[in-house]
Every structure is written in structure tokens, then in C-alpha cells.
């Protein structure tokens, strides 16, 4: 057991000696992973903020089910009770024709304009607040459909159309991100694997000597894997740091446009957890690249 621990110590020592001994290949690997982290992390920032915006709209989302003019107040209350049983609906308020007119009047600030109207043109309605889990675009559509099925409901209105479009855009960005991520990941892996292979070739004399004195394949390969992990983690961290810089330079430039189009100008950066995931992801890429390099190179 202690021999294994000492071997681990030698592996780590050999890995750091290797990193110091080949600064060029080390630098190229770190830079490659850092450069790949920026667009991947950037896409994550964009989709994360789009998701947050969608959630915010969802919180404010209310549906209104307009009722047939023949529906009486007691029937309307009964409909409200039925509606509240629909999954995804948090609470339902029945708004009678009179209440609707009163609210309209209040909103107009007591204007005399409505005095000229002899009959109440406003329909009775159900004002519906959605439960949190039903704020996704597809759930909003399902709730809307269920409301349409209720007798006496003429029409259902709300921001769902806009949310659906936005949801589609979010899915599109996510899909594009995944596609781009896959291409970038593959390219990064190839570059890192080949760079580490260069490091293996550069040290082949040393590896041959170690093999001659009885080093096992594990002993020859593990230091390269450790080097890959270290390079990947450093590359990931540098990439996130650069992305953070880009984010803080870009957001003030975009603030007006965000405010204008989305009514929102305060996007957030990645959470500490997601930063951690990117750094660990970088380390995983370094490890995978090193593993490919070590397996494809006959080091013994």
C-alpha cells in the first residue's frame, strides 16, 4: 500500500517535471483548451440568461379565459372552480362583466368616455395564475387547450404565443450550442491529443530508459495523464477568466439593446457551480487527450 502511495508521489512529481520540461507543448495544450472554453462558456452564459428571462416572464404570466355573454355569474364561479382543478393552474379568479367594466374604468382614470356606452361591452372572464411548473411554453399551451374545453369559454388570451416563440429560440440556441460544442470538443481533443503526443515523442529517450529499468506501462503513462488533467484544468480556468473579462466589457455595450428588446438589461455570468463544471470539464478534456496520446503512442 505504501509503495503504491510512493509511486503516486513519483507519478505526480514526474508529471510536474514534464510540464516544466516542455513549456511549449504545455503552453499549446493550455491555450487550446482555454480558447475552446470561451465559446462553449459563452453559449452557456447566453442560454442561461435566456432561460432566466423565460422564467421571469413565466412568473408574470397570467391567462385570461373570456366567457360567453350568456354565462351567468353563478355559472362563472362554477367554471372558476372547474378551471382551478386543471393541472398547472395555481388559482382562478372569476371577473364578472361589472367587475371588468369597473377595472377598465379605474384603468382609464375615471374618464367620461365610458359614460356614453349604454351596454357593458366587456365579457366576464376567468383570471388565471399558473403554477410554477406550468410556466414552460408547452405546458402553457396544454393549460390553454384545457381551458378551451370548458363550456362557456370563448377564448383564451395570454403571453403564451410570445413565450412559445422565445422558447423555440432558446431551444434553437441550445441545439446550435450543442452542435458547436461537439465540433469544438472534437477539434480540441484532437489538438490536445496530438500536442501531448509531441510531448511523449520529445521524451521517448527518457521513457525508453525508464522502461529498461523496469517501469511498467502504467508508470510510463500515468504522468502524462496527470499532465493532461493539470493542463486541462489550467486551460479551463484561463478560458473562464477570459470569458469573465469579455462578459464585463460586452454587457455595458449591449445594455441599451437588451433593455429595448427584452426590457431587461442585467444578464448574469455563470454561477460558481457552472464555473467549476467548466474547469473540471477542461481537466476531463486534458485527461481524454492525454489518454488518446498515451494509447496511440507506444511508449514502452
Amino acid at each position, binding site marked *: 500500500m505504501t509503495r*503504491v502511495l510512493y509511486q503516486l508521489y513519483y507519478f505526480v512529481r514526474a508529471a510536474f517535471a514534464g510540464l516544466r520540461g516542455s513549456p511549449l507543448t504545455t503552453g499549446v495544450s493550455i491555450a487550446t483548451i482555454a480558447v475552446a472554453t470561451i465559446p462553449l462558456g459563452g453559449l452557456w452564459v447566453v442560454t442561461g440568461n435566456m432561460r432566466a428571462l423565460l422564467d421571469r416572464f413565466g412568473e408574470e404570466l397570467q391567462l385570461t379565459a373570456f366567457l360567453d355573454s350568456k354565462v351567468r355569474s353563478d355559472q362563472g364561479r362554477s367554471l372558476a372552480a372547474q378551471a382551478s382543478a386543471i393541472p398547472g393552474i395555481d388559482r382562478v379568479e372569476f371577473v364578472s362583466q361589472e367587475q371588468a367594466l369597473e377595472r377598465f374604468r379605474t384603468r382609464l382614470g375615471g374618464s367620461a368616455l365610458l359614460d356614453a356606452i349604454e351596454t357593458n361591452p366587456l365579457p366576464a372572464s376567468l383570471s388565471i395564475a399558473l403554477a410554477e411548473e406550468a410556466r414552460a411554453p408547452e405546458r402553457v399551451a396544454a393549460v390553454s387547450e384545457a381551458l378551451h374545453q370548458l363550456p362557456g369559454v370563448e377564448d383564451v388570451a395570454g403571453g403564451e404565443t410570445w413565450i412559445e416563440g422565445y422558447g423555440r429560440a432558446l431551444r434553437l440556441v441550445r441545439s446550435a450550442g450543442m452542435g458547436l460544442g461537439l465540433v469544438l470538443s472534437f477539434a480540441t481533443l484532437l489538438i490536445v491529443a496530438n500536442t501531448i503526443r509531441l510531448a511523449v515523442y520529445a521524451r521517448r529517450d527518457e521513457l525508453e530508459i525508464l522502461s529498461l*529499468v*523496469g517501469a511498467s506501462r502504467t508508470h510510463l503513462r500515468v504522468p502524462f495523464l496527470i499532465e493532461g488533467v493539470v493542463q486541462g484544468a489550467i486551460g479551463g480556468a484561463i478560458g473562464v477568466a477570459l470569458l469573465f473579462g469579455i462578459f464585463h466589457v460586452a454587457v455595458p455595450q449591449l445594455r441599451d439593446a437588451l433593455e429595448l428588446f427584452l426590457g431587461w438589461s442585467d444578464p448574469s455570468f455563470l454561477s460558481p457551480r457552472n464555473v467549476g463544471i467548466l474547469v473540471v470539464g477542461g481537466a476531463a478534456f486534458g485527461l481524454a487527450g492525454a489518454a488518446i496520446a498515451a494509447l496511440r503512442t507506444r511508449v514502452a
Partner: protein
Amino acid sequence: MSAPPVARPAAESAKEAPSPAMRSGPAPRPGGDPLIRLFHVSKSYAAGQFSLRDVSVEIKKGELVFLTGPSGAGKTTLMKLLFAAERPSEGQILVLGRNVARVGERGIPQLRRRVGVVFQDFKLIASRTVEENVAVTLEVIGVPPREARAKVFAMLRRVGLQHRRHHRPAALSGGEQQRVALARALVNEPAILLADEPTGNLDAALTVEIMDLIAAAASRGTTVLVASHDAALVRRYARRVLKLDGGRLVEDLPGGAPA
């Protein structure tokens, strides 16, 4: 499995004076079971072209044996077979009881940890210090760093290089570099030491220096096989000589016989 008959011509009288290393103390009598056995071993790199052809030989514990012959005789090939750098095309090789012809990938490191090897071109790691070069033999088997440092220091003192331990190989003379290589091969107290033309790059004075250290290892009980085409060197040490020519073992002269 019985060993095949091995040609052992009668000893001729030894007239050469023993080397200083041999005079320095009584060498343990070689004996017991052979540590190295070759049974009808052939090695061919291309069809019909043999580097070694039907070689059978036994080497006992504590023996110092010279492997001689002209360039291309098969000395290096035989050495490579013994530390599993090559596989025989035919025949069986037993080293320390292991069948090298059949040892798997995992078994090779285990074998090499008990067989020290010294090369003509030293094969030192340029980026590491003398101390670190010697320590690699101990690192690969997970010897604790403190224990490894003590063993390396003792070994470097034995080869007279303790004062050079923090230098890199490039700062050392050829003789010093070969002493480092020898220290690396011996620091783990291997059962067998293989030296392939260990003095091929050295002048006469340094040759004696290195060979004395190798002979001293044999006197401590290590089985030593030295490949050399230096007839004067072989005569000087007057030990058992295996002579290869065209891949065949043509002579097996016991200790004390002139080569």
C-alpha cells in the same frame, strides 16, 4: 525438462595476471542453479537471416562471463533477448527461472527490475541530475524517497561520484557517465548485470576503472555478462568467455583461459 548438452572445452592454462579488482578480495565461487539458460535459441529479423542460430548456454550465479566476437556476431542480440527487448524466433530462454520467450507485457518490467543493464552509449536522462538518474531504478518500484536517497548516495560513493550527484550528465566525462549508468544498474542490487560494450566509448584508463567496478559487482555475487570485442580486456580479467561468430556460439572457454 532436462538441459541440453552445452559444449565446454577443456580449460587452457591461464598465464595472465589477475586484475586489481580480482586481487582485492576472494570472489564467491559461482555455483548452484544457472540463473541464465538458453536452449537452442535462434533469432531472425528477416527470413533466412539469423542474428543468432541455435545457441545453448548456461550461466551460474556469481559468474562473470565475457561475450566476445566480431561486430555483427550476435552479442547485442543475445543481450537484448536476456532483458526481453527482443523475443527469440526459436528456442527457450530462462532468466531467473522465468521463460523470457513467453513472458507477457506485464512480466517484462518485473524481469527488468532484477536485471541491471549498462550500454555503450550510457543512456542517461539528460534533463535529470546524476542522483536522479540513479534513483529512477528505485522510483519505478516505489521505494520511499528518503530510503532511495540513502541508497543512491551509498551507490554513488561506491562508484566515486558522490561529489557529482547534483550535476547533469552533460557536465560529466565519458567515464563518469558510464559510472552513473553502472550505479543506476546496480543500485537495486540486481541478480544479473548485463553490460553491452560498457567500455566501447572509453579510453584505456577509464576502461579499467569501469571494468573493475563491474568485476567488483560479480565478486559480491551478481551474475555478470559483459559483451566486448576488446580481446585485451577479456584477457586481463581471465574469466569465462563465450565467443559468438555469425550468430553461432563457437567457443565456451572457462575462467582463466585466454580468449
